[in-house]
């Protein structure tokens, strides 16, 4: 009998109050003590608190193993800055960075930049896919061994290992190369919430981790199968996709566990462990993205209760076996597009 696929767990640490970096650090550390794969920090363009990328960079040096996945929006930003920021999070965390790609389609967000045309969800998600694509190219625009420090010839870099990306998107172009050398993971982990139909194509094309708002186990499994099939049709190895069910959890002291409805679970930590074990054993998903209703109390219950219970059953790691987020997710470090295709410099 083959060993069951490893279970992956992530948790959201966002929500008000937004102005306390110490609180975010405490939550990330709790998640790290629970050996979770990564934490997410929700954000929007024009959100009320500190920007999520900045906030997770702030806590990177004070954590050791936990993956750090800020929401980064792509609609009103410069792709060149976005990829540089995410690559830098990977450098300062020594290979623990991801980014949750999101779009901005509200008129309120539009007014913050005074952009004339409002981009609809379909166009915004198509553009998000272009930003993900050009980001990977820019991360590859430096080969890993581009820095040579060759004293005899006086060359700091081998310019044959630096590459123009010459990307032409529908709304932007980028010449490249990046300013930031290729980050430790090669590509930081790309996360896309594919709960809404409009984001599914972008997820199938570009995501390493797909988030799906949990329905029933059967519905979620069917959606995941559909996504893998779509990725395969696009020429990707569907085994390189990690599909996590997003579940809002309320681990109160309330009575019996309720079945998840509309992506919500209410009940005891042990009840949640039962649910996770059941779904995972049935092959519905690779893991869960858990959103505690009240993170300050909920996250501790999650790690002390649910995660501990899963570990007792041998379903979840009892130590980190790797140092990078890709390592936790058992995703290989990607080959460099330019090194493998011999792209012209």
């Amino acid at each position, binding site marked *: 009998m083959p060993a069951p696929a490893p279970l992956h767990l992530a948790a959201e640490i966002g929500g008000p109050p937004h*102005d306390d*970096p110490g609180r975010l650090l405490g939550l990330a550390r709790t998640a790290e003590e629970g050996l979770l794969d990564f934490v997410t920090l929700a954000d929007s*363009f*024009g*959100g*009320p*608190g*500190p*920007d999520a990328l*900045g*906030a997770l*960079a*702030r*806590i*990177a*040096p*004070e954590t050791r193993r936990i993956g750090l996945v800020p929401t980064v929006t792509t609609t*009103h*930003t*410069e792709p*060149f*800055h976005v990829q*540089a*920021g995410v*690559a*830098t*999070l990977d*450098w*300062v*965390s*020594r290979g623990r960075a991801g980014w949750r790609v999101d779009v901005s389609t509200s008129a*309120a967000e539009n*007014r*913050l*930049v*005074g952009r004339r045309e409002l981009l609809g969800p379909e166009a915004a998600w198509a553009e998000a896919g272009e930003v993900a694509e050009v980001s990977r190219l820019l991360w590859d625009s*430096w080969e890993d061994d*581009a*820095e040579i*420090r060759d*004293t005899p*010839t*006086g*060359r*700091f*870099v*081998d*310019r044959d290992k*630096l590459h123009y990306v010459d990307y032409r998107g529908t*709304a*932007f*172009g*980028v*010449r*490249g*190369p990046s*300013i*930031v*050398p290729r980050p430790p993971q090669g590509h930081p982990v790309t996360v896309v919430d594919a709960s809404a139909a409009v984001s599914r194509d972008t997820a199938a094309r570009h995501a390493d981790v797909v988030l799906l708002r949990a329905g029933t186990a059967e519905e979620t499994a069917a959606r995941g199968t559909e996504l893998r099939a779509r990725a395969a049709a696009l020429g990707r190895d569907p085994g390189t996709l990690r599909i996590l069910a997003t579940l809002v959890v309320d681990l109160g002291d309330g009575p019996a566990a309720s079945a998840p409805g509309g992506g919500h679970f209410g009940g005891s930590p042990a009840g949640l462990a039962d649910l996770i074990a059941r779904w995972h054993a049935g092959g519905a998903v690779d893991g869960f993205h858990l959103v505690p209703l009240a993170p300050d109390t909920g996250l501790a219950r999650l790690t002390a209760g649910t995660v501990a219970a899963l570990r007792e059953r041998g379903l979840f790691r009892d130590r980190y076996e790797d140092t990078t987020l890709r390592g936790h997710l058992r995703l290989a470090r990607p080959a460099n597009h330019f090194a493998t295709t011999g792209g012209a*410099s």
Partner: protein
Amino acid sequence: MTTGPTPPRKQIHLAAHFPGVNNTTVWADPRSGSQIDFDSFVHLARTAERGLFDFFFLAEGLRLREHKGRVHDLDVVGRPESITVLNALAAVTDRLGLAATVNATFNEPWELARRLASLDLLSGGRAAWNVVTSSDAFTGENFRRGGFLDRADRYTRAAEFVAAARALWDAAGAGQRSFAWSGDHFAIAGESTPPRSPQGRPVVIQAGDSDEGREFAASAADVIFTRHGTLEAGRAFYRDVKRRLPRHGRREEDLKLMPGVTVVLGDTAADAQERAAEIRRQQISPQNAIHALELVWGRDLSAYDPDGPLPDVDPDPDSALVQGRVRHADPFEAAARWRALSEEKGLSIRQTVIETTSRQSFIGTPSAVAAAMAEFVERDAADGFILVPHLTPGGLDGFVDTVVPLLQERGVFRTRYTGTTLREHLGLTGTGVERSAA
């Protein structure tokens, strides 16, 4: 002889520059570490904080430089994105100010105001923004907005950008939830403001020496980052910039002048001079000498011997040989100056480049350097200095260990941080926003 209370001595402000993409880092030195690993940033930042510096300073580049149509390969190249690495440094420092150079041409006010206010919040009031602009289509090829601004427009856009960012920070400081800004370059509005800045607003730094740059700094900056050669040139610049302040309703102490300088220490004066000369020879390799010459001439001069005489051809004023660098405003004037120096002293190409591309330097024993720095500040040639080490990340260790204690003994440098915010370190009070505002 009458005795009275001694007036407080003018205090020196110090900052540290992490040399990113540059041609001054001696990367071939075995003590030269990584320019990208976070550990390098941690070491230099902690050294600066151990030395009670005001802030840690990062430059920015948005397109790799090119020479003769190819990526330039002789210089240190590659760096992390500034605001993100400074957010991480906020975790491993307590008091040090964190200054990011960010281009106003290729960003939007709301987004940048939020990112800087976030850094300010996450660092407990230690953020600064060094405002730069860009006009070249070359850099613009990496951005949505392209590179279409002419020189005049990029300054008016930058001025409006800073004013809009300031309006956003001030609205947040005053507890307002909504704001609107309408001008020639931006028409933006919203129902939320960036996070409130713990120091009123992030410190604004301006680099530049042009008349427009000086006026812009006098109107909007808290710190001006400059370079000037001699004490007298520094005094003239200082007088000129400080004189502009009252026109903008500001006081002399509202703007600090901090030139970028290098320091070379030795056990004796001769020892320091010898080290400085050796560093210059390492910085200007034969390949770099020809490259520097080509920057002025705008021509391929690779056939020339770096140890031979300067070329007798004229510069090409319309050269596209160099991309991503500021060219000499008048290459004919620069070439004439270089030729005159070379003939007068009998210098080779490489020796001429070494002489002409030197930065403002303090070279000597620790006590001589401390005395020279104190004189610069006491005689109003500067309010302090941004130190640019030639080695990363250990290049400031010696200065902090030996010169800082001597400045403290002289009573011209703090012996502990007395405030928590960068604004407090710099002695800036005129934020326009009361920190206690609800």
